Structure formats: C-alpha cells, structure tokens
C-alpha cells in the first residue's frame, strides 16, 4: 500500500444550465480512481456551486498511481431520471510522484465534454502521500523523471547518458469494439480517452522500469505516439533517452545562462562541463589560462576531459586517411575502442536528443533513415505485441547498420513515426549518424586518459563537420575538401542532419526554413498490391525530396541542413512527402556551387533564350538570398558579388591565394575542381516544373525569419515576447485534373500560402523569427490534404542583431586576413573574447550524403558532414557576443526599473515548442504533460462549420493544457508538441470528429529582469553570464 491519494472538490463556476425550467443546475461530483468512486453532495440550484468537500482518500499501489488517471465527473442531479453528465476532468497525477516536481495539484480545471466542449470549470486539490517501498521486484517506477525536451533540461546536469529506451503497448480500439454499436458517441469517446490515458500511464511506467534497470533516473527527449490502426487496434509507443541527471545546486551563479540559447552556450562552460579542450586546442596557451581565470574554477579538470573531439577524427577502420594519420596516436585508438565498446553493448546506440552537452558530439556522419511498409493485421494478443515490436526492431537494425556504414557508432536526433491509411502502414525512423564522446556514456572511467589529451592541439569548433568515415572507402559519393576552418580535416560539401545546430558551430549569416514538397499519385489498391505499390514509389519520393532539398539549399547559397524531418504520408490514392529543415551556411564547409540549367535541345533559339532567362533568374535569386541571409563568407566576398557561379579559373585562383600558408594547396585545388556547379537538366516538362517550383518559394517578408530548429542561426538577441500558435488547413482537390504536376502545385501553394498567412498574421511582432516551425501533412480522405503547423514566433532586437552580424562579418574578415602567427599577436583580445565561446567546445559533426536503396522497405542514407569553427573562429565570434552584452545590459536595467508588465500577472501560461523561454530562466520542471482529447459534434453547421469546430477545439485544448500547468504551480509549457491532430468530417450528416494529442514539460520560469542577482553594470568581462541573460530580456 505505498500511496495515499487525496482529493478535495472545492467549487465549480460557469456551469451550463442543465434545468431549463429554473435556468439553474443541481450539480454534484464523482471522483474516481481505479475502481473506487466517491461522490460529493448535490449543490442545489447554482451555476457556481461551492462543494467544499471532505478529503476523498484512495489507498493505492504506486503501480496504479502511475497507470491510472484521476477521473472527475461533474453531473446534474435529477430526481426522476438518470443524472446528466456535464463533463469530465482527467488529471494525470504522475507529476506528484517524483520528489522534485509538484507537491500539490490545485486549481481550476475546465470541465470537458467530448460532445459539448468545455462547460464551466471546477476547482480541485490533489495530493499524494507516498510511502517508501523497499520491494525489489516492484513493477512501478515512481521517481523516474520524464522530459519531452530533447536536450538536457536547463536546471540539470547530465552525469551519464545511458541511451535508448523504447516500449509499446497495444490494445483494442474501443471505437471498433462491438459494444460501440450500441453505446452513445459520448460513451465511446470517453472510453477511448480513458483507455489511452491508461495506456500512456502504463507505457511510462514500463519505460521507467527500463531506466531504473539501466541505473538512470530520468528520460529525456521522451516522445510518445499513438497509432490508430483502426480495426487492428490501438498502439501506444514511446522512445526516449535514459539519463542520470543531477540537479544543479547553484542557481544564483548560474542564473543568466539558462534560458536563451545564446546565453546558454556561454554559460555552460563556466558552470558545468565546459571543455577546456575547446579553448585549449587553440594555438596559444596563454589564451587558455585566461579563460580559466574567468571560470568559477572548480570543475575544470573534468571539463577538459570532454575535449576529446579529436579522437573521433580518426577513422574507425584505422585505414590511413590523411587526416587520421596526422593525429592518430595510440591514445585515440584506445579511446575509440572504449567508446565503441560502450556503445556496442547496447542493442541500439540511439539518442533522441537533438542538442547535447558540450563535448558529447564528436563527429556527424549524416542523416540515416529507414522506412518500411507493413500490412496491418489484427493484434491477437495485446499482452504480447510481438509483431509491432519486431517491425520496429527491424527498422532500428537498419538504421544502426546505415550508421555503421558511415563510420559512426551512434545515432542522434533519432525519431520514429508512422503513417496509416486503411490497412497499410508506413513505419519511418530517422536520425543522424554520429561519433560520440564516451565520457557521458560511462561513469567517468575514461576521464583520466582524456585529460592527457588536453596537451594535444586540436582544432575545436569545426570538429563535428569532419568526416567520420574513411575517405578512401566512402559509403556514398561525396566531394571532400579540407575544412575551411582548421584546414586539417576533410569535410563534405554539404551536410544534412536531424539535430539542432550545435552551439559552437561557426555559421555565416542567418539560417532559413527550407522545405521540399512532393505528391505522387498512386492507384487505389487493396492489401498486398497496395503495399507493393507504395514500396515501389517510396524510393523515388525519397530521391526527389532529396533533390529538391539540395536545389533549394543551393538556391539559398547555403551548405548545411539542420533539424531535417522528412514525412511521407500515405492516402488512398496518393503519397505526400514533406521535408522541412533549417538551412545554414557553415563556415567550415565549402561555398556551395550555383545551379546551372542545361537544355537538351540547344539548337532552338527561343528555347536557348528561355534557358538563359531561367538561368539568369536563378542566379539573381541566389545573389538575392545571399544578401537576404547575410551570407558573405569573407574568403570569397568578391566572388559572390561578381557572379553567383564563379568560373572555375577564378575560383581556383582565389583558393590558392587563400591557402598559400598551408601546405595542402594542391589538394584543396583538386577538391574544388571536382565540385562543379549543380546542373539541372531541363529535358522535359517535369523538370521545367521543378525549376519553376524552385523559384516560386517566396522569401519571408522583411523583418521575418523562420527555421524549424530551436534557435535561429545568426540571431541571438531575443526579446521576451513569444506567441505559440497552431494553424490547420485542409484543401479539397478537384478530382478532375489530378496529375502529379497539378498535385504538386496545389500542395506547394497550400504550404506557401499558409506561411504567407502566418507572416501576415504575426506582422505586429516584426522583427521576429518563427522558430521550431513544425509542419505535418496528412491525407484524411480522398482528395483532402490537411496541413498542420505549430510554431512559435519570438521577437528580437533588430538593431542589436544588425550590429552583431556586422561586427561578426568584420571580425571574420579580419580573421581571414590573418593566419596563425598573426593571431598570436592579439592574445589579449582573444582571451577575453574566447570566454563565451568555450562553452561549446564539443563540436558536433553532422554529415549527410545520400544514396538511395530501394528494397521492399526502401531506405536511404543521407550523409553530409560538417564541422564547427576552429578556435580562432570561435573566439572571434564570441567577441561579438561580448560586445553585444553591454547594450543588452542597459536594456535589462531599464526593464528592471519599470513596473512588472501585464504578462507577469497571475494566470498567464506561456506555451512554446522550444526548450527555453527567451528572457527567462526555468527554475523548476514540474512534470510531463501528455494529454489526449476527442471532440465530436453532430451539429457541425451550428458550431460554425469545420473551421469553427476545429478552431474552438484547439483553443480548448490549449486552455486545458494551460489549466493543468497552472494547477501544478507552473507558468509555462516548454517543448510543447501537438503530436496528432486527426480530423474527420461528414458534412452531409452534419458531423465531425477530431482527436488531438499534445505533450510538453510543465515548468516554472522567472523573468530575468526580475532576478537581481548580478548587477548588469559590472564590466562585461566579469559579468558575462548576467549580461547574456539581459540580452534575452530586452
């Protein structure tokens, strides 16, 4: 009997009128947990009843505490007939089960009915008394913390990152049970809501057990999904990354760092595990020393251990690639072995994280993905979901082998998804192959060795771009060049990844959202035939999506993609592909070539003219984009200004002059020679369409930026205004002209118009950036395409941004003109500047390249590799931030003196898909929010049609999330995600139904302007962290 759950029903308000005669309601409440039910008294004739009940006490196992939701039903008492239900509230009491989270749930909850929506509110207080249970064979996993955030949560430190945990549970879907024919829609919906709530509780408990087995205490990057398989059942599955987390104890010193990403980067080094390596790798020792003096001191020997970035450089096979040869020592080999063994012990060395502690990510190999088409069959025994398990195991194996092919032993930024249509299901998994630092994977065993490594000189910053695979034995064709940053290691020409941009990556200019959109018609078919048809189409779709991404990336003048997410959705008669990513220009990678158009019939004069016209348009677009995103890599400024596609001769000349100081001139030249401009052949109308569609993507209006990652590369002076939103569009295709081209155009227009609408709606926030733009596409019916977007708009300070970029550019120029010796002449400047940069020492490399295989489960690997900046670059970049800091500080000061703004009044709950809140520090994580709602109507027209219905429902979902967070004592949800939004309509019957599943982390945040910890007036150097914080606030 390890737990006592106590519930008190306080009051209700705004109840609906249930008795037409009196215009009042006789309400009472049933409180149910497990099989026990309590009732309050009936409060007669009131729409605002005051029950003030006693404490209802449930004595339950902690296993039940984890699985079961608390169910509160509000009813209208009726003497003569059955009592009418007003609505229900489900409360997940999980947050009360671990010590650091919430201690009480207390507040107003919307009373929700699946037919009528929200009908008034009820005030409830819930507490749990947990008794210690020493039973070693327990089935519960109370105390394991769950986080949706895909990075180490802000007020924690990762001691060990254990790795992948997954679980799935299956059940029959109540909607498809025989009893559903005789029960009301309300009863059916409620059965479903309750079942899913129960299943997610069970799933979470089981995952928790696995974590305990691994000796972890938390799951980070927890992602739980539902597969509504219709007749064949309901699958709830979850993946996550098991970790051992330590709560950071010194919040005061730490404060400013947490929230803003930019800040974060800087701070981390001070507090936690900055890698001394990163700094140290720089040529000058004095620099290193200075850095240290700033840091609080205690932890730094340990930090240094993380610096092993270099090790990863060695190709795993040990075959002598040039880069490997230079640095390879017995030492590295040892390290590598350790890492590998640590990872190989695991079945799947996968990590759902997309951002990592400094030093964790060593190299990035590229995107790996696998898809599989399956026919759904009835799940016969829900307790033994072997089929589904086997399916996923198969896919994961494939991912693992792809990663191996890339010379990587791990996959980061890993995620899984499904798309179901009738009895066909596409399972997809993707991630980024990577080489990781073993320090976080084992319990500090390697620290000793690593520390020695400090002495070696390694380029910091750009390491993650360097290829992890063997140059002579590449798994796919790629053009390699020497890293533009350190000039010592090879990098690919483009890099695709599924992770966030590493904090320390050297980026030129700003990033932007890049999408590839594609439709493919498919014949309607049944079962096997259908699955085969889909399987056959998949490889082509993958290929085309990839080509589109490449073209668009080049059109933007950029060379790397982060946060890549490719979604393939299946419908009755078509497949849709939607890829979103954030393009950036990584300083370590070569400048992308332009796009050249070639016609196949060169004799036709007008055709030629047309081609050259198109070519000109493309060149203009590239030039315009470079200007727009401020991409002016210093080395090749003239080139850009001149013509977007420089002639080979000119280019090589430039290169040579650049690299004179290095001894690898010839190689550099060579690689460049290989890298031709991207050629698009226009040989048929299809290709023509492609070119047109390339040019139809309109850049966001000025003052707007967008990305699908956590932070926008090139912007780091966020102000505190945020607006999270969800937008849904459904279009009906006219069935007459269903050709692939028409479809593509429709789909493209749909997405573009949606983006345009967003920019227009949010224009009052300019200058602002849409972050974490998350598109999902589905095909609910024949001829219907549904696109759902969730994102957050964050304002930033334009002036500061301009200033920053400018200085950045200047600095870069400076850097370009200097070489190592020259650098040494400014040790002082470097030292002070370098402080902020250190934190990011762990370079992550992502590589993407692709080759596609088409087998029954088509799969492909994209690899690209990129590398972060060298120390030199890094320190310079940081300088910029320092300079920025002082104006920010002033802003902060100003803010503080002003009275608290309206936003801070009680009751406001912020929601954001990001893991942080600009201008604020997260002080506490209160637990995971994971909610599932169904809404149905039989009076669609009366509720404003489909738009009115869904608009109201989404608003209600937001309201219920906010209410639960507020009741936990929180004031924000971070890492919020709408995982599912399934909408079905039947206008003829005046009916519609929608299912929504959302999750996120409930947190408490404190505005930095309210934290009077460090005086902003201090000199920039000493108060770095606080200044950075201020930056965010302004």
């Amino acid at each position, binding site marked *: 009997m390890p737990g006592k759950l106590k519930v008190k029903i306080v009051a209700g*308000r*705004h109840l609906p009128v249930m008795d037409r005669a009196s215009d009042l309601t006789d309400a009472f409440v049933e409180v149910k947990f497990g099989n026990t039910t309590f009732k309050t008294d009936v409060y007669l004739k009131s729409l605002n009843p005051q029950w003030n009940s006693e404490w209802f006490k449930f004595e339950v196992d902690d296993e039940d505490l984890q699985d079961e939701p608390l169910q509160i039903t509000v009813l209208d008492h009726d003497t003569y007939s059955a009592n009418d239900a007003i609505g229900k509230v489900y409360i997940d009491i999980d947050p009360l089960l671990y010590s650091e989270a919430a201690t009480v749930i207390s507040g*107003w909850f*919307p009373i929700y009915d699946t037919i009528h929506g*929200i009908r008034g*509110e009820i005030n409830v207080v819930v507490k749990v008394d947990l008794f210690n249970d020493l039973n070693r064979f327990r089935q519960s996993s109370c105390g394991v913390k769950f986080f949706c955030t895909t990075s180490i949560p802000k007020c924690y430190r990762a001691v060990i990152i254990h790795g992948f945990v997954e679980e799935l549970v299956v059940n029959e879907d109540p909607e498809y049970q025989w009893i559903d024919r005789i029960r009301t829609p309300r009863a059916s919906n409620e059965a479903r809501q309750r079942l899913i709530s129960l299943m997610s509780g069970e799933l979470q408990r089981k995952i928790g057990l696995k974590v305990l087995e691994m000796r972890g205490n938390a799951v980070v990057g927890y992602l739980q999904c539902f597969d509504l398989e219709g007749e064949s059942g309901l699958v709830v599955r979850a993946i996550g990354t098991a970790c051992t987390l330590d709560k950071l104890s010194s919040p005061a010193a730490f404060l400013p760092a947490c929230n803003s990403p930019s800040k974060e980067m800087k701070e981390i080094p001070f507090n936690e595990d900055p890698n001394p390596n990163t700094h140290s790798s720089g040529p000058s020792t004095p620099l290193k020393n200075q850095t240290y003096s700033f840091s609080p001191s205690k932890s730094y020997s340990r930090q240094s251990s993380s610096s092993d970035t270099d090790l990863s450089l060695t190709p795993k096979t040990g075959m002598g690639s040039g880069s490997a040869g230079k640095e390879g020592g017995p030492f590295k080999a040892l390290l590598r072995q350790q890492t590998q063994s640590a990872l190989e012990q695991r079945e799947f060395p996968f990590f759902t994280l997309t951002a990592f502690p400094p030093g964790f990510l060593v190299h990035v190999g590229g995107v790996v993905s696998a898809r599989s088409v399956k026919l759904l069959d009835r799940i016969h025994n829900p307790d033994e979901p072997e089929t589904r398990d086997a399916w996923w195991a198969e896919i994961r194996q494939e991912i693992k082998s792809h990663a191996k092919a890339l010379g990587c032993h791990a996959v980061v930024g890993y995620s899984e998804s499904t798309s179901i249509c009738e009895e066909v299901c596409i399972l997809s998994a993707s991630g980024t192959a990577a080489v990781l630092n073993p320090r976080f994977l084992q319990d500090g065993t390697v620290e000793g060795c690593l520390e020695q490594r400090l002495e070696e000189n390694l380029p910091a910053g750009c390491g993650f771009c360097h290829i992890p695979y063997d140059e002579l034995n590449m798994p796919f064709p790629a053009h390699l060049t020497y890293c533009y940053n350190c000039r010592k290691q090879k990098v690919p020409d483009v890099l695709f990844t599924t992770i966030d941009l590493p904090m320390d990556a050297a980026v030129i200019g700003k990033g932007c959202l890049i999408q590839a959109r594609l439709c493919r018609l498919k014949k309607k078919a049944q079962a096997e035939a259908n699955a085969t048809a889909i399987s056959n189409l998949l490889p082509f779709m993958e290929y085309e999506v990839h080509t589109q991404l490449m073209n668009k990336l080049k059109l933007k003048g950029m060379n790397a993609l982060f946060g890549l997410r490719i979604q393939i959705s299946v419908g009755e008669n078509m497949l849709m592909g939607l890829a979103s990513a954030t393009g950036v220009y990584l300083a370590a990678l070569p400048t992308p070539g332009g796009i050249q158009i070639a016609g196949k019939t060169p004799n036709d004069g007008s055709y030629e003219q047309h081609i050259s016209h198109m070519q000109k348009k493309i060149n203009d677009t590239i030039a315009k984009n470079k200007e727009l995103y401020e991409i002016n890599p210093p080395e090749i400024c003239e080139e850009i200004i001149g013509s977007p596609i420089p002639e080979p001769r000119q280019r090589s000349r430039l290169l040579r002059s650049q690299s004179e100081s290095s001894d690898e001139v010839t190689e550099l030249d060579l690689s460049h020679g290989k890298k031709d401009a991207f050629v698009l052949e226009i040989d048929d109308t299809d290709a023509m369409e492609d070119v047109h569609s390339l040019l139809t993507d309109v850049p966001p*209006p000025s003052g707007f930026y967008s990305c699908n990652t956590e932070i926008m590369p090139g912007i780091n002076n966020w102000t505190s205004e945020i*607006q*999270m*939103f*969800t*937008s*849904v*569009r*459904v*279009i*009906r*295709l*006219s069935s007459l002209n269903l050709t692939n081209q028409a479809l593509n155009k*429709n789909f493209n*227009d*749909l997405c573009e*118009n949606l983006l*345009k*609408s*967003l*920019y*227009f*709606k*949010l*224009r009052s926030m300019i200058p602002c950036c849409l972050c974490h733009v998350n598109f999902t596409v589905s095909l609910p019916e024949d001829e*219907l395409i*549904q696109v759902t977007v969730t994102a957050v708009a964050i304002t930033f300070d334009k002036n500061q941004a301009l200033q920053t970029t400018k200085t950045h550019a200047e600095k870069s120029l400076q850097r370009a003109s200097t070489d190592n010796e020259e650098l040494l002449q400014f040790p002082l400047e470097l030292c002070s500047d370098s402080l902020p940069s250190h934190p990011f020492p762990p370079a992550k490399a992502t590589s993407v390249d692709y080759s596609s295989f088409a087998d029954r489960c088509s799969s492909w690997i994209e690899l690209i590799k990129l590398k972060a900046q060298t120390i030199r670059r890094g320190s310079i970049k940081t300088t910029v931030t320092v300079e920025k800091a002082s104006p920010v500080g002033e802003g902060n000061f100003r803010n503080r003196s002003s009275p608290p703004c*309206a*936003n801070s*009044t009680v009751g*406001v*709950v*912020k*929601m954001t898909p990001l893991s942080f809140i600009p201008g604020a520090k997260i002080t506490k994580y209160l637990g995971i929010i994971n909610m599932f709602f169904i809404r149905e109507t039989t009076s669609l027209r009366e509720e*404003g049609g*489909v*738009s*009115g219905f*869904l*608009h*109201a429902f*989404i*608003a*209600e979902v*937001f*309201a219920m999330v*906010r*209410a639960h967070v507020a009741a936990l004592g929180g004031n924000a949800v971070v890492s919020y995600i709408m995982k599912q939004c399934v*909408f079905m309509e039947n206008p003829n019957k005046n009916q519609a139904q929608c299912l929504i599943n959302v999750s996120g982390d409930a947190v408490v945040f404190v505005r930095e302007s309210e934290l009077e910890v460090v005086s902003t007036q201090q000199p920039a150097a000493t108060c770095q962290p606080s200044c950075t914080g201020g930056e965010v606030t302004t």
Partner: protein
Amino acid sequence: MTSELDIFVGNTTLIDEDVYRLWLDGYSVSDAVALRVRSGILEQTGATAAVLQSDTMDHYRTFQMLERLLHAPPKLLHQLIFQIPPSRQALLIERYYAFDEAFVREVLGKKLSKGTKKDLDDISTKTGITLKSCRRQFDNFKRVFKVVEEMRGSLVDNIQQHFLLSDRLARDYAAIVFFANNRFETGKKKLQYLSFGDFAFCAELMIQNWTLGAVGEAPTDPDPQADDMDMDLDKEFLQDLKELKVLVADKDLLDLHKSLVCTALRGKLGVFSEMEANFKNLSRGLVNVAAKLTHNKDVRDLFVDLVEKFVEPCRSDHWPLNDVRLFLNQYSASVHSLDGFRHQALWDRYMGTLRGCLLRLCHD
C-alpha cells in the same frame, strides 16, 4: 483547389484592432476584405488578397466566439479558453460597448423593446450604420438595461461592475438606461440640434439630483429604501414640484421675483430689455414644466418643453450664453429672497439641476 478548413489559433489570442472595428461595424467578411484592401494593407505588407481573406475570416471567427463572453464581460476575465492580456480584454469590452452617436440619438429615450428593434432597419437606412451594428448596439443597451434595472445602488457603479466599462462609457450607459427608463422624448425635430452628449449631461444631473438614489446619497437620510434606484425619478419630489406653481400663480410673488432679478441684472445683461419683457413668460414656462412633471406624458416631454419654453425664446432674442447663465443664476437665487415662498429646498433641487441642463441645451 478549395480551402475546406483554415484556422489559426494562438496561445495568446490575436486581436487585430482594425478587423475588430470592421466586425463591430457590422461588415460582412467580403466587405471587410474589400475595405482592408482599400486601406492599402496589401501594399504595406506584400500580402495577397487570399491571405487577407483568410486572416479576416479567422478574426471574425474569433470575435464570434468571444461575443458570447462579451455579453457578460466578467466572464471574459475569468474564462480559460482565450488567453488575452488584460489591456486587450479591456479594449475588447470597451469597443464592443462603444456606440455610434448617430445611432444612439435615434434610440435615446425609446423603449428598448422588440418593437423598437423592428425599427432598426429604418435607423440603419437613415444613419448609414449597418443593421448588424445597429442590432449590436441596441442589444447592448437592452442588456445593460436588463441587468441594472432591478439593482440597488449607484447606476454608474452597477454598470461598471457588471460590464467592466470605463468611467466615461459607464456614465454614457447610465444616461442611456435612464433615458430609456423614463422614455424622454428626444426625437422631435426641434430637439435634433441636441447631441447625445447634451442629453447625457442632463441625465447625469438628473440622476444625481432628481432620483431616489440622489436623496439616499445624502448622509442625513439613513432610509435604506431610499438608495434603491438611480433609474426612477423621485415620485415624491415630482409631486412636490406642484408647490412651485405659486411662483407664477401668485401675481405678487411673480412681480417681486421679476423685480429682484431685474434689479440685480440691470446693466449686466446685453439683452436686458428682452429679458425684462420676457421674464414672466420664461418663468411661467419653467415653473409650469415643473408642475406638470407628475404626469408621465409630461415627463417624457420634458426636453421638448424646455426647448419650447425657454431655449427657443432665448434663441429668438439672441441671448448670449453668458447672459443666459447670469439670468438663470439670478433667477434661481432670487427666490431665496421671496419671503412668502416656503419651498426653498425644493426649488433648489429643481432649479439647480434645471439650470445646468438649460445652459447645456442653449446652443445652436
């Protein structure tokens, strides 16, 4: 390709003030889009007409959902569905309850009944205000009226508390409710020159001085019944006003009053001779208005009478406003010197308010 469904939901509800105004003004979505296009917003933002259409639809839908809450503004503050910053909530409420001068002049003093509502078509045609907007304004008047009708205490306070309006707007509503309750005639042609502001000013004075609530406000009167209502004129007071008739009925008193006023104002008034010639008519007019107020019909015609009996004579003789003021002050004050007149307090209560009203009514 047609858009079946198109929505945008923000965690903080987006309110576009311009669209809100168009919605309040009763424009259909297509009219609103056309008006927005004309405002040049497309050029400013580079948006397309389709974007504008979608945006407008979205805002309209939001407003429709909010409308239910706006009918009881405290609900808007406590509801959980729309997260709206307090300043925006205030703006929504204030704008929703704002009304058009032209409209309120048409409805002021009319019974807020179904019958009047049927006439809204005509009002709409006459004023150029959309029927939808007329309905909203009319329903607002009616809703406020219904809520505060039976309430005790200060009319303005009640309105403010239940509708969370600004002080200014709450006062206007108090006037509207007061006029509707007492059915003052304001629509006659000779009253057309008066603005809503003029009437609201008078209403406020009357509420302060002529209602039951007004008596209750005096600390000397502890009768709990007395501070019952601000909406109804004090019946007893109206009855008592008959007593004032003696001022014109008793010839001596009238003469004495006239001589007192003339003596005091001689040389100070530009229109002295006209005043002297007209004194008895004017005085008779003012006192008779008072004496008649026992009949509901005459209460309704109060403003018509005041204009006919006082404002128009003054206007025809071209009295400057300052002369009117001097005259009315002296006219009221002189009564205190009439020894034979016993109803000084009553006179002050009547004339104090009336003086203010008349001064306000005397303009072109």
